[in-house]
């Protein structure tokens, strides 16, 4: 068994400082430029074939913004620190944080790049939803993108002015809306009004008005003040399209009558969805694919741009439906993380964060598979990258050879702590050993004690870096040493800093229950609970309830 090393011992290692940015839309360009401005070389890989950076994600962009975008494009093109790879296809990302080897093709040509970090900046994708409304696109039935484009066209503007048409918008029935889609609709409503000098009328059929964005409530009011009419409906209105002219009808509960409209134009909402390349990138980069095809779960322990792997960042619409200023916020947050991670190309790191005993390791790769941070690779034995490792200890507890030890939490150290804790309780009070994740229940327990909540006299806490570090042996050792009760206190599912620690802990405790059952030990003596750091009263309640159950 590897015993504790000097936990203070550090070493200086060299890391690659080039950064790969994936995605040549606004966010990707912004990221490339901001990273280059901080002195890092950037490889900007775009899956589109265009080789002159002429593509932007222009969704919802007002015309004056286009100049800013052009400036950005020119700055990127002129920046010698940025290497632009068009028509790029990322094939493989080997290695770990600070030392990735990216294999890709650009215009069919194979290449290999050494980078220290990766930034994913894929664009949001827009798709028409007219089929859900049973509408065929025609010169009267337009997508939102169509109308945005037409509204900048002088001929269309004149037509609006002369015909003073009724324009119907259909929003939020084919999908759950969002503020970015809402902004596009609100802007289009105002643009219709302006282009027609107030002559055209917009009728917006909508489910929920999604105004949780900058200035949207004001735009909503401005549109209504200028004559736009909003019908807020909980169900899809009845739509008929005969010979190209749609008719929209619904029952208005407020005026208790059926309202039918025969608009001159119908503008149909568009789906704004995650880029379809995301799942593939997630697999290649070994980062989590979140809900709705966006990258990353919403884990509150991490900065929103940080992925489950150190050194891989997800920005802008890669991680959620976001507007350009949110994308800028993400880019700046990424730059700050990159500066800290890559610095001047050297890093001082703890020498023995987690150590593989190469004598014991049989290269079964259990650790490689279970590491939630993608921090493990192998030569002929498993190797843990000290830069990428977050010291959660999941690998150490899963290793069938017991070949991995985490500094400060080596098995013999924890066993010793359990023994000491059990033997400390002398006066006959029920002995309760609580294994506490340092990110949640350990904090809750400390606050509970300081706030003088009632706690069992015989309660002793054992700190673990993650519930995923709680080995089934720890639980059994505690019981064998004489603990009357054992608590394993993890984070809530979805809140584990290491994503899967709670799941691993729960599996092991389920196993432990089976063992207790076989040996005839009262199952009530073991409990698995989930807590957050701000749940001190709950911590106290759980501990007291266990005491009364076993006492």
């Amino acid at each position: 068994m590897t015993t504790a090393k000097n936990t203070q011992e550090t070493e200086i290692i060299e890391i690659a400082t080039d950064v790969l940015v994936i995605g040549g839309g606004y966010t990707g360009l912004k990221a490339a430029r901001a990273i280059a401005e901080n002195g890092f070389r950037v490889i900007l890989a775009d899956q589109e074939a265009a080789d002159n950076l002429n593509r932007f994600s222009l969704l919802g962009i007002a015309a004056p913004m286009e100049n800013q975008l052009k400036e950005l494009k020119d700055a990127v093109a002129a920046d010698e620190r940025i290497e632009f790879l068009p028509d790029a296809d990322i094939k493989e990302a080997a290695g770990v944080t600070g030392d990735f080897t990216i294999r890709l093709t650009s215009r069919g040509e194979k290449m290999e790049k050494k980078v220290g970090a990766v930034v994913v900046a894929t664009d949001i994708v827009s798709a028409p939803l007219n089929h859900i409304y049973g509408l065929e696109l025609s010169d009267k039935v337009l997508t939102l993108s169509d109308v945005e484009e037409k509204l900048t066209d002088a001929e269309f503007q004149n037509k609006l002015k002369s015909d003073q048409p009724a324009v119907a918008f259909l929003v939020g029935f084919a999908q759950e809306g969002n503020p970015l889609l809402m902004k596009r609709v609100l802007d289009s409503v105002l643009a219709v009004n302006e282009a027609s000098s107030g002559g055209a009328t917009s009728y917006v059929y909508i489910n929920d008005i999604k105004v949780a964005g900058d200035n949207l409530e004001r735009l909503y009011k401005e549109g209504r003040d200028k004559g736009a009419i909003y019908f807020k409906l909980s169900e899809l209105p009845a739509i008929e399209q005969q010979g190209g002219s749609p008719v929209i009808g619904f029952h208005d509960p407020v005026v208790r009558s059926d309202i039918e409209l025969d608009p001159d134009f119908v503008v149909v909402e568009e789906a704004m969805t995650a880029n379809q390349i995301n799942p593939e990138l997630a697999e290649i980069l070994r980062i989590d694919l979140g809900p709705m095809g966006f990258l990353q779960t919403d884990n509150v322990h991490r900065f929103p741009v940080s992925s489950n792997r150190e050194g891989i960042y997800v920005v802008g619409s890669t991680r959620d439906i976001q507007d350009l200023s949110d994308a800028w916020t993400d880019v700046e947050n990424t730059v700050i993380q990159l500066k800290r991670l890559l610095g001047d190309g050297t890093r001082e790191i703890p020498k023995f964060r987690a150590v593989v005993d190469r004598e014991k390791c049989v290269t079964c790769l259990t650790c490689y598979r279970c590491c939630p941070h993608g921090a493990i690779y192998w030569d002929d034995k498993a190797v843990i990258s000290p830069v990428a490792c977050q010291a959660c200890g999941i690998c150490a507890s899963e290793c069938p050879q017991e070949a991995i030890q985490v500094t400060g939490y080596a098995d013999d150290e924890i066993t010793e702590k359990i023994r000491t804790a059990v033997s400390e309780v002398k006066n006959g009070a029920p002995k309760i050993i609580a294994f506490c994740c340092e990110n949640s229940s350990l904090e809750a327990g400390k606050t509970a004690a300081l706030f003088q909540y009632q706690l069992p006299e015989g309660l002793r806490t054992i700190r673990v870096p993650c519930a995923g570090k709680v080995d089934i042996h720890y639980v059994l050792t505690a019981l064998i040493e004489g603990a009357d009760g054992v608590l394993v206190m993890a984070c809530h599912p979805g809140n584990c800093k290491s994503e899967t620690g709670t799941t691993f802990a729960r599996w092991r405790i389920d196993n432990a229950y089976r063992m207790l059952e076989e040996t005839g030990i009262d199952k009530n003596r073991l409990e698995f609970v989930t807590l957050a750091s701000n749940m001190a009263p709950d911590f106290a309640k759980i501990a007291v309830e266990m005491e009364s159950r076993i006492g």
Partner: protein
Amino acid sequence: MESKQVMIMGGGIAGLTAARELAEFGVNVHLIEKTGFMGGYAIGYTCKATDECLQCGACAVEKTLKAVTETPNIKLHLSTTVDTVNLQNHKFSATLKKGPCYIDPEKCTDCGLCFTQAPEEGVVLRGYTKNNHPLYVITEEGIKKHRDFLASVCPEGAISVDAATESASLGVDAVVVATGFEPFDPNQKPTYRYADYPNVVSGLDMERIKREYGRLVRPSDKQDPEKVAFIQCVGSRDERLGHLWCSRVCCPYALRSAQSIKHKSPDMDITIFYMDIQNTGKNFPAFYQACKSDFRFIRSIPVDIFPEENDRMTLRIFDEAQGAPAMETFDLVVLSTGIMPNPDNQSISNLLGIELDTDGFFTHAEVLNQSITSQNGIFIAGTASGPKTIASSMAHAGQAAGEVLKYLGVTK
């Protein structure tokens, strides 16, 4: 190179995040907080988890505060306000008004004697977490009424009842404004009778109740309510009040709260009165769908509230389905109070020469860059510039820290 100094105004989640990020780069941070506790409003929010985390972000505040208290190059200034700021040769010189601080943080052991033995409530206030140090604050009222008790209660001699307001001066290279928001005062909507009925509570009141009792109870009798109503948009999206903004956090707040309440009390009947439900999280469609099967959603904002027997209340609404007015009685009404500009914003704007928008929040000087102000060296973070969730306040603060580092030329 001499270490740079940055003053951050506001010790809420935005200020804490900016402080932590800057300190990582060796910047010396002065974190100025006007109340006696770091953490802002968000440190008082309870966890909304059911069997799983609902990503409310409250624990992230706890975690960030812990990190800040453990960082040596962040100096915390509690019960402190910024009096004057002058800019000369790219250096800001500020005068601070501190205290009176009756408890000496060096001597206080957070033992709690002053709190537990206090002759009445309101003499000593307790913080929210072990990461608040000192964990206790003595109020002005407490000093006036119980001076002798306070002078003698502390075994460590950490309390000095004669403490006075002190001035201090500070020279810094940059300023971050992270002064946060003010929750809407429900008394401005008199028909909801917030001041009159004990069982009409604001979101913050509900947090206090949940912290104290570990679950949601009625303030009037401390019993579990059977029927609970959430009223959305209280103070937000209100043309009559001139509040033409969505507070962005109240829908997520209400839905998550309702989920966590229902998790603890599955029989509770919850109704949400709303105009439009706003999204939260990338998995919102699925979350909203689950909410729709667990709670009743009524698209109507109640007009007013009448008292009933047993401290119950009747809401008068317009029932869209029936096309007619309707009445319904509840045991507890939660007002989802919105995010308002901090009332100090005008004076801070005058102090620093940075502009407010028509709503009273701080504006950013560039369209897309939300943390730049019109003054070089002054940056903005969090809800001071408008409604934000905990996660977006943190992201905004990270951006502000990035801009500060750029401005100071700090690299690593």
